[in-house]
């Protein structure tokens, strides 16, 4: 237990493994997963510094959803043909999709309230 605390927080490796396996649709050598995890680590390192730069530029200390959207635009993940909400619909589980995409509810309510649109 004490050893666990000294480790720096990272994405759970079982998750990384599972997701990667899902996407390749091909047999993967066992050693490969270690490499994938290393890549994830590098990826996150860059991600945090990018997001920090974006938030800083806007004079904020909190990374907002719009910062991430700008980042994804720069990564060419979000384009004019593929807007962000399409990606959300395709890739995120339903429970989380509800938090990101406003859903019209009865009684003329929209949940969540639209802020960043």
């Amino acid at each position, binding site marked *: 237990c004490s050893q666990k605390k000294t480790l*720096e*927080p*990272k*994405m*759970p490796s079982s*998750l990384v493994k*599972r*997701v*990667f396996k*899902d*996407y*390749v*649709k*091909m*047999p*993967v*050598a066992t*050693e*490969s997963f*270690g*490499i*994938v995890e290393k*890549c*994830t680590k*590098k*990826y*996150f*390192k*860059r*991600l*945090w*510094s*990018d*997001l*920090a*730069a*974006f938030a800083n530029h806007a004079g904020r*200390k*909190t*990374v*907002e*959803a719009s910062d*991430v959207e700008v*980042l*994804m635009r*720069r*990564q*060419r*993940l979000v384009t004019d043909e593929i807007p*962000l909400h399409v*990606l*959300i619909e395709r*890739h*995120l*589980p339903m*429970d*989380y999709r509800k*938090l*990101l995409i406003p859903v019209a509810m009865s009684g003329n309510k929209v949940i969540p309230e639209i802020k*960043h649109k």
Partner: protein
Amino acid sequence: MRRIVPRTALRKMVKSEKLGLRLSACADLLVYLNFLLFLRRLAEEARTNAFQNRSRIIKPEHIIVAAKAILKKSKG
């Protein structure tokens, strides 16, 4: 696919990496989405590499080559 987003893990990662930086309520989900798409790109690239080398399974070298290209693409 797993249905749970490790939101606390993401927040902890920010904290350990960048002191004083926080994620807003929805931003962590988008970060997770970004991470999924990164892995998808990586997987696709690795698969093409494996095909080009006539390999039936994904070996570490395929991923290393793919990672170089994809990490470059995910620069912000």
